């Protein structure tokens, strides 16, 4: 099961290939529908990968990842509106702010040994507290939300075509893939998975579970913050229920679980599959409120029952079977 250097190298090549192939999409098509689909699938991939860092590799299931998404989104919007800060400068602030909230929630939760269902519920409660706060205070625009004025230029991170946004979110996704690659192949990732699989055993060999989990939630929250900032740049609008409501939390978790937790390509797979499903239902039934979420919920339940390792788990099982047979037939690579 341990990843060898050669498989690590092949994974890197895979990430490079993915990056180049997706980056070429805006060059070969100018169809708004196609570009929009790829962009939104990448965005869903980003939040799924962010969730996967903490949930998949760390085994800490968050039900409130919108907490970090919303914080990034609000910082991105408020920095521009009230600070007059350029969006490219606001972006690192949004990422850092989201990571800081992640570290705060993580420090509290992990200090008191919260895990499993309790951690899930506490993250949800934190997201709710932030939602109510965002409705109540004035600098978030209250329930009305914040609108970022349209000033189309690359210097202002507002692109004339969907292609620009696609490249931007692709950059985030590739960064998240590289971090995931590092988790699979590096020392920190090994520690994190050791803590996930058996915290006491990990502690016994000298790993500090608190620090490891804290780093994981910080990293995970940082990518959610980037996703929030991206959301604000694309839609130029944010309000408390978009920012801290359950939809983003659910999307992140369902895509990661459907694709396969703790894997490199699982979240990508999950996000794409869910988006194709969502598009199909939209074509079949039209724009109905809630229908996407019904599909997501049904898929989640089915995956948990029949494929607890996600879609990527099928590939793993097939590969294990394959290599077992390969050993027998003596053409093992």
């Amino acid at each position, binding site marked *: 099961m341990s990843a060898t250097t050669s498989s690590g190298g092949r994974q890197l090549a895979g990430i490079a290939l993915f990056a180049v192939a997706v980056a070429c999409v805006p060059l070969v098509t100018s169809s708004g529908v196609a570009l929009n689909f790829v962009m939104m699938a990448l965005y869903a991939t980003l939040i799924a990968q962010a969730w996967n860092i903490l949930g998949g590799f760390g085994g800490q299931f968050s039900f409130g990842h919108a907490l970090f998404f919303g914080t990034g989104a609000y910082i991105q919007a408020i920095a521009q509106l009230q600070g007059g800060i350029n969006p490219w400068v606001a972006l690192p602030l949004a990422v850092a702010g989201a990571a800081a909230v992640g570290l705060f929630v993580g420090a509290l939760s992990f200090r008191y040994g919260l895990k499993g*269902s309790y951690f899930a519920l506490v993250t949800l409660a*934190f997201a709710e507290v932030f939602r109510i706060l965002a409705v109540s205070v004035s600098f978030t625009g209250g329930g009305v939300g914040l609108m970022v004025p349209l000033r189309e230029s690359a210097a202002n991170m507002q692109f004339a075509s969907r292609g620009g946004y696609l490249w931007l979110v692709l950059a985030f996704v590739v960064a998240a893939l590289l971090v995931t690659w590092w988790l699979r192949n590096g020392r920190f990732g090994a520690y994190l998975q050791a803590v996930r699989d058996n915290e006491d055993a990990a502690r016994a060999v000298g790993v500090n579970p608190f620090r490891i989990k804290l780093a994981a939630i910080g990293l995970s929250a940082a990518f959610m913050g980037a996703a929030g900032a991206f959301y604000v740049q694309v839609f130029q609008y944010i309000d408390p229920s978009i920012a801290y409501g359950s939809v983003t939390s659910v999307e992140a978790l369902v895509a990661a679980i459907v694709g396969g937790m703790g894997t490199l390509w699982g979240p990508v797979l999950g996000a794409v599959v869910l988006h194709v499903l969502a598009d199909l239902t939209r074509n079949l039934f039209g724009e109905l409120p809630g229908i996407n979420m019904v599909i997501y919920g049904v898929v989640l339940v089915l995956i948990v029952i029949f494929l607890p390792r996600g879609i990527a788990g099928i590939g793993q099982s097939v590969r294990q079977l394959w290599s077992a047979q390969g050993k027998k037939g003596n053409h093992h690579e």
Partner: protein
Amino acid sequence: MFDFSILFPSLLNGLTTGAVYALIALGLTLIYGVLHIINFAHGACLMAALYAVYFLKERLGVDPYLALPLVMAGMFAFGYGLQRVVINRAGHGKDENILLATLGISIVLENLALLFFKSDTRSIDTAYSLSTVAIGPAMIAVPKLVAFAGALVVSGLLFWIMGRTDLGRAIRAVAKEKEGAKLMGIDVDHVYAMSFGIGLACLGAAACFLLPAYYVNPQVGGGFVLVAFTIVVLGGMGSFVGALVGGFLVGVVESIGGLVLGESLGQIGIFVIFIAVVLFRPQGMFGAKA
């Protein structure tokens, strides 16, 4: 100085709300105590029950209080089936999987309601909806008084089932020692499903008591989920007495907190209490192991 004449109605109000909270929490704590799972879909199931009560009244003219046995039976059957068909198969030996399955169920229920009934907030009109009685210096709505008494009666019934019947003994046996119960010839899967069904039947009762003085929309369950979890954790996971006391306590704190702090901050209060309790006193008031 506190003026008691302002505080008293608020206290009374909190106690009546607390009784319904307790009923909801009893269902949750029963499911936790026996199956050792957190039913994240508890709020969504309450929402479904509220819609059932609503449509029974609006379409068929059945009074919510008369609908009680029907709604309880319906919710019981729903819970029994849900446990047998979905939740029982989702575990694969991990608590997180069950939590995810119940999350999936709650997403499906809430969004089906959104799909079919739209996001409109609905309430029913009964002859007694607006009538009040005077208790000391306070005027209290009749439906709230009925809810208080009714919740206590249903809770008493639940205590009786758990304490005095064969079913209750089987449930307690399974909760304590699953393998041993199996060896004694108890059908564990059946007991699990019965417990889940009874837990949801409590929601059916709560819905009948709630709706005459309350409302229903697809998101209504969300507010109750964390309240119920707060009560259950506060009372000690799996403890019935804890859930009852915790229900009253949270009802009163919420009501008086709303009076002192105002509506929106009062809403935050419940989440802050939840976070604080889970972090600092996960064993609850009565020291039961979480």
